[in-house]
């Protein structure tokens, strides 16, 4: 057991350290001072190990803090009258159940696990159990100080605050036991977050957890506390199954091959979809030069560029119609829905980001066009690069603005109250904001593509800066979801930001793209 523990940490550290080294090797300034044989440099190993430990500690507390302060804090801001302790217990119960269905680190796919069991032939049972115990320990250690701080300030007794992380951790055994039992019966590994039913239940619970504070409704506190505490004994019983189970090698191999195959298939399918998306040689264009080139590209990639954007527009329109018709049957429905959406516009920035076709657009551009065209010298000439950038920017804006505008109109209609001029102004501002955001995300992705050209010949993303910026953007917009900002403030700030950002982005492209837009070796 001790040997497996040592090997597991050794392997995990090696895997993560090498990832850190790889990232360091991509950073221009740091790259120059690094020795070529990185792994044999002792001082560098100390730095990387330190970075690894800092990363693990951050990982331990940061996500937990984000989760508790973000979710609980956001829901607190939604309700004016619900007592804090009631809101805390209700949210805790709902989130814990969602976590049990969606976020159990048991038999989940990890690269180091794949290497350990499939290649290094470590003891699968010991490895899985140590891995599980390690992740449960992280839950307890990472949550405890945050829950105590948050719970006490929300009027929760200390003994319950201390019990919460243990209940959550032991609750994970319930899903783990379920996975093992169903595997023995069906031969299929139902790792957390895989089944559609889990997603549906989690979605419904999430919706309930969100809507109830809005309606100032709360579940009784004591049953919620009892529900959380119940996880402890039930989890203990299930732990017996988990610790006495024998087929860990078989189930791990099934899961690893199942996921590995699914990942390979998804990647292959993704690339094939782009390749196969070219169709209809009969399509023509009456334009000339780069406009001709672009028009043929757009017309022959309708399936992957326009179709999803139009589908999304239909979904948004249907949602808008359902909500607007639905509130006719609820007393004061329009006022209620206007109140809900009044502070929620930042949340829809995240939706606008996720429906943006920026990345699929640049991926198709690279895979079916620039991958080949960048080998021709005329294509890389400054004027030609910039001319095509402008044409492409126009096209990607055209694609993204349709669902963006639809989202704006839908949200605008939700805050509209007949006879209230203020609500009309708000509605118009929302429409403008969502439209501007769709333009912003178009500019953002195309600028990143031209300045960092992240793809290699296999259309894998290899640019570290691209990944960092993309992740940073995602986190920023994700955090924005939890902010409750009045429409007027957010709308104006957003419009100003969009204009400034787009101007700077275009300037950067004009200055740098002729040098940066090239094939990666």
């Amino acid at each position: 057991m001790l040997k497996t523990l040592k090997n597991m940490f050794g392997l995990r550290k090696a895997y993560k350290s090498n990832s850190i080294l790889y990232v360091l090797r991509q950073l221009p300034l740091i790259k120059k001072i690094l020795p070529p044989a990185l792994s044999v440099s002792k001082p560098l190993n100390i730095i990387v190990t330190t970075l690894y430990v800092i990363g693990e500690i951050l990982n331990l507390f940061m996500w937990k803090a984000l989760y508790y302060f973000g979710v609980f804090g956001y829901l607190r801001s939604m309700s004016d009258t619900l007592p804090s302790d009631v809101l805390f217990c209700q949210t805790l119960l709902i989130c814990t159940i969602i976590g049990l269905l969606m976020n159990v680190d048991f038999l989940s796919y990890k690269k180091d696990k794949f290497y350990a069991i499939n290649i290094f032939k470590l003891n699968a049972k010991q490895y899985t159990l140590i891995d599980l115990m390690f992740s449960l320990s992280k839950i307890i250690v990472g949550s405890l100080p945050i829950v105590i701080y948050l719970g006490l300030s929300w009027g929760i007794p200390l003994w319950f605050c201390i019990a919460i992380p243990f209940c959550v951790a032991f609750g994970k055994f319930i899903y783990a036991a379920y996975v093992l039992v169903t595997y023995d019966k069906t031969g299929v590994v139902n790792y957390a977050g895989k089944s559609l039913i889990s997603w549906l239940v989690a979605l419904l619970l999430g919706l309930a957890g969100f809507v109830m504070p809005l309606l100032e409704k709360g579940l009784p506190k004591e049953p919620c506390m009892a529900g959380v505490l119940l996880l402890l004994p039930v989890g203990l019983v299930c732990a017996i199954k988990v610790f006495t189970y024998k087929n860990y090698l078989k189930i791990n191999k099934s899961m690893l091959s199942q996921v590995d195959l699914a990942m390979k298939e998804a990647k292959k399918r993704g690339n094939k979809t782009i390749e196969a998306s070219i169709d209809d040689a009969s399509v023509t264009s009456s334009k000339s030069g780069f406009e001709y080139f672009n028009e043929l590209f757009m017309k022959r990639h309708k399936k992957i560029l326009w179709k999803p954007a139009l589908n999304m527009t239909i979904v948004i329109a249907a949602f808008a119609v359902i909500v607007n018709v639905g509130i006719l049957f609820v007393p004061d429905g329009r006022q209620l829905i206007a109140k809900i959406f009044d502070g929620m516009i930042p949340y829809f920035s995240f939706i606008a980001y996720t429906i943006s076709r920026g990345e699929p657009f640049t991926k198709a551009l690279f895979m079916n066009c620039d991958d080949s065209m960048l080998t021709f010298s005329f294509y890389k000439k400054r004027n030609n690069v910039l001319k095509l950038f402008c044409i492409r920017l126009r096209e990607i804006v055209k694609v993204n603005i349709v669902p963006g505008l639809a989202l704006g109109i839908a949200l605008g209609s939700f805050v509209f109250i007949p006879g209230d001029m203020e609500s009309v102004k708000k509605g118009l501002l929302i429409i403008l904001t969502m439209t501007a955001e769709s333009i912003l995300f178009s500019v953002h992705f195309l600028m990143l593509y031209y300045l960092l050209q992240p793809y290699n010949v296999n259309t894998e993303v290899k640019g570290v800066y691209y990944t960092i910026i993309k992740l940073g953007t995602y986190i920023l917009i994700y955090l924005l979801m939890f902010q409750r900002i009045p429409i007027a403030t957010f709308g104006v700030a957003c419009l100003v930001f969009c204009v400034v950002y787009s101007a700077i982005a275009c300037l950067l492209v004009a200055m740098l793209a002729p040098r940066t837009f090239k094939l990666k070796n």
Partner: protein
Amino acid sequence: MRLVIEGLTKNFDKKEVLRGINFSFEEGKIYGLLGRNGAGKTTFFNCVNKDMPVTGGTISFEENGKKKELEPDDIGYVLSVPTVPEFLTGREFLKFFLEINKERIENPKTIDEYFDSVSILEEDRDKLMKDYSHGMKNKLQMLVNIIANPKLLLLDEPLTTLDVVVAEEMKQILRDIKQDRITIFSTHLMDLAVDLCDVIVLLNHGELEVVDKANLDDKGFKERIIAALKEEQDA
């Protein structure tokens, strides 16, 4: 006109791939750049084509005693794996290419005349290039590089994966267009280099070295090249 390489070095970390190359390539000749796999042939081409920054040295044209920097229009680069935009038909690609480059193409021909010159059949000209065979893509890639009429044509193992018939057609095209330009043809196939090229250059220890063809029968010549390449391996 000459392509003059002076002190060209390229390092990857501490590894010296090109070690201060001094060489000049002359107009009207096909140079066969021979080297083992991994010798640095593609790196050399990428440096000349400015796809990769050099560690040191200069690359320039010399005409009537005057030196001039290489411009993108001066260089044609044909890769071993043909790369053409697959969402276009062959005809659309040529139309686009001719429109973009109309100012620098002297005596342009019709699109069909260009297709005829590389034996691309009429029935294939309006097909999407994603349905082209490897050989057809290669011919088209070569064709646009010929139309652009670059002063320097870099060919990175372009015939290695072609069938015998297409390879012979391509060789003939290269012989036909070699006047008025410098052609550098990299390969690790010795027979191909001996058959096609006027001058054989070995990329050896990160340096270029001419192998003299004079006064040697084919067998002796090949043995000399192999000896040089073996020396590279032993070093």
